[in-house]
């Protein structure tokens, strides 16, 4: 069967669906191709839905800020309650040696215009008695949010579908046909689609799409594991608590690989979020295990141990579910790739969001739609250009 589209988007994750929505809003005829039998079955369905402003560094910080602005009215716009909630965030440390790093984090964020506050351990426990005795210092901030990841993913798809976007499920992109400098059509295991543009939003699998065009897209699957607890009464002040180790393990690959500590080697650094329902999600870890997306007992053990240090009452709460997901991680520099390329000219890459794709989904969709339909983007995306990998292609 031959189909036709203005734009084919590979991937029914939150990035692909956001791209489809913002394109459809501009009147573009989009077909989303997803190899699984439904949406949100990759990283987008296996994350914590946190949008922690203080964890973002420039140049991604600018994207995060704009994305949070778009999130503000998104529920209304796409007619779907995405459970966008202002929960703030608290980054804290249980290690005396980290005190200067925390101070520096605080000063850096101040300079970036983020409204942070440094709070000593004893004061933290007064404000939030559930915090552990070992915590020496924390940095709080109230411009962080959380969302329901499934609802964002499905909500974008719902709104895109209403604007005419077609979704093909159980349909895997296998081959891409070129006509000189351009892509002419996309071949899946079920159909052929003639298209003017192809957007690669295949997440951790984005490099496979690249290979079909002879390109090296430097993205690897970085696995992350999560435990979910039963619901318990809501914390008074902070429901989004992060281990200061997160500041290094998530962003500094060398620090993880060079560490002698087994926990750090597995990338275990806590992100503890209590959902409105009262359930805690305890995350997370960061390792490279190919496309294996199962949890491992060893990693869960380190995660549980560490979680109890920060929020001791978690030890008596039951874990009811665990899961793992694969982050699309750019091993070149850890930054997203939001870019057209030289050849084929009508190929667009939208991936590499690593542990931040839920936060960055709205702005990514908006910018990619602009990149395809307009002469420029409303926010500079030069820092995320594919041309930065000149040496590998």
């Amino acid at each position, binding site marked *: 069967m031959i189909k036709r589209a203005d734009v084919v988007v590979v991937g029914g994750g939150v990035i692909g669906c956001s791209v489809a929505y913002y394109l459809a809003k501009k009147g573009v005829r989009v077909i989303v191709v997803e190899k699984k*039998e*439904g*949406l*949100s*079955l990759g990283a987008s*369905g296996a994350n914590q839905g946190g949008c922690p402003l203080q964890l973002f560094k420039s140049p991604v910080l600018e994207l995060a800020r704009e994305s949070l602005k778009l999130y503000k009215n998104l529920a209304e716009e796409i007619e779907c309650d995405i459970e966008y909630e202002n929960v703030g965030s608290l980054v804290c440390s249980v290690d005396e040696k980290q005190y200067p790093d925390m101070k520096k984090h605080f000063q850096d964020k101040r300079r970036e215009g983020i409204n942070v506050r440094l709070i000593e351990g004893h004061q933290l426990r007064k404000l939030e008695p559930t915090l552990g005795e070992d915590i020496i210092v924390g940095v709080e901030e109230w411009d962080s949010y959380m969302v329901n990841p*499934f*609802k964002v993913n*499905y909500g974008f*798809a*719902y709104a895109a*579908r209403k604007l005419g976007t077609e*979704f093909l*499920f159980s349909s895997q992109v296998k081959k891409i046909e070129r006509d000189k400098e351009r892509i002419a059509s996309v071949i899946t295991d079920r159909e052929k689609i003639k298209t003017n543009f192809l957007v690669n939003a295949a997440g951790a699998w984005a490099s496979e799409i690249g290979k079909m065009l002879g390109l090296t897209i430097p993205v690897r699957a970085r696995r992350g594991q999560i*435990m979910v*607890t*039963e619901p318990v009464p809501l914390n008074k002040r902070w429901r989004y608590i992060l281990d200061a180790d997160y500041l290094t393990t998530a962003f500094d690959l060398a620090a993880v690989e060079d560490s002698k500590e087994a926990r750090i080697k597995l990338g275990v650094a806590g992100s503890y979020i209590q959902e409105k*329902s009262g359930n805690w999600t*305890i995350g997370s870890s960061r390792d490279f295990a190919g496309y294996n997306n199962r*949890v491992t*007992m*060893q990693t*869960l*053990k*380190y*995660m*549980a*141990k560490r*979680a*109890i240090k920060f929020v001791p009452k*978690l*030890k*008596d*709460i*039951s*874990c*009811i*579910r*665990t*899961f793992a997901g694969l982050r699309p991680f750019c091993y070149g520099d850890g930054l997203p790739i939001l870019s057209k390329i030289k050849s084929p000219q009508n190929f667009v890459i939208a991936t590499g969001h690593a542990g931040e794709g839920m936060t960055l989904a709205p702005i990514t969709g908006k910018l990619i739609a602009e990149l395809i339909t307009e002469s420029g983007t409303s926010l500079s995306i030069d820092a995320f250009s594919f041309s930065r990998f000149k040496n590998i292609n």
Partner: protein
Amino acid sequence: MKKKVNNTICRCEEISEQEIRDAIRKFNLRTVDAVKRLTRAGMGLCQGRTCTPLLTKIIAEETDKKVDELLPLSKRPPVRPVKVEFLAREGEQKLD
């Protein structure tokens, strides 16, 4: 007997039949997994042991699929709830 649409289907999460049917229609859901994720039905303490058969039946009705065509809920360890402290101590043992 007339069917009451406000039956509670998932007791753990207090999700009604109507909420489930609405979500299936709005979001075009085709699998038990998708319904579970969107509505929280089956995500409760019993992890769907009680409500999955009912859930499957509703999806079958809404999608014209047969009950046995619908994939079972993906099982994710632990099979039974375990205290986080147990995971911290015994994490290396198998959970199921």
